[in-house]
């Protein structure tokens, strides 16, 4: 997801970079909600995607490699891929750990259908996949 260019077979993902601060939450939740709807996720999974976006917006600024929160989004039939980063070394795991909510558990781990950590030199990327369980 991180290295595709405009000469590839498919388009690169949509990328959004937001200065770490109060705009991350409002902007990211809107975009993620739109991509979840585009993926034709049912309402409960769309809500889950927005919840993950809210957690990323709240926790990622402590783990980013620069002063922006960067997210790449890609929707396909009944699934949404969200790649957060670049993060500092150890930041991907840190972000997952920070997603734990007392009395609820870890929001990302409970809601995601797939979690991967990609490394590029000193930087890390956290890829979170949400899908509809009924999808083929």
């Amino acid at each position, binding site marked *: 997801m991180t290295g595709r260019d405009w000469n590839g077979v498919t388009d690169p993902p949509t990328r959004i970079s937001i*200065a770490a601060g109060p705009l991350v939450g409002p902007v990211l939740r809107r975009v993620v909600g739109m991509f979840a709807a585009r993926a034709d996720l049912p309402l409960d999974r769309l809500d889950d995607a927005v919840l993950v976006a809210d957690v990323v917006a709240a926790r990622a600024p402590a783990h980013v490699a620069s002063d922006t929160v960067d997210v790449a989004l890609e929707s396909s039939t009944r699934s949404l891929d969200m790649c957060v980063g670049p993060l500092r070394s150890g930041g991907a795991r840190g972000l997952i750990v920070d997603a734990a909510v007392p009395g609820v558990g870890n929001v990302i781990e409970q809601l995601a259908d797939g979690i991967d950590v990609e490394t590029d030199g000193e930087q890390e990327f956290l890829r979170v996949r949400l899908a509809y369980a009924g999808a083929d």
Partner: protein
Amino acid sequence: MPALESGIRLTLPAKPENVAVVRHVLGALAEALGLPHAVTEDMRLAVTEACTNIVRHAYAGGRGPIDVTVRPRGGELQVTVADAGRGIGPSLDTAGPGLGLPLIAALSDSLEIEGSRGAGSRLIMSFLRTRDTAAIGMA
């Protein structure tokens, strides 16, 4: 009105459905900043027009990005809409009235156009954050 510490950058494929994504981002930004309705509507319409121009004309049926950046500049928001396409020039693929750039100029408080044939284009629009009347009475 909350301060905008720094900016937002959005890079996405130049496809019709992605113009709506840009509009949603601007809407969320405007809500978060508490921008006046008139400014929000003018900004959304101007940026929509700029993005639509890219989708329709920049890549001549090929693929490429729309790059939208929003930055604070004192009491203004500066919105830059850029592409890596064929550059600004007479369009051979439309018989439209060519109102896009004049409309963008009317809606924004200032407009700069950069680019040349084959080198992409950049529209740099500024919007006063405190303006409470629509530029051309559309909001």
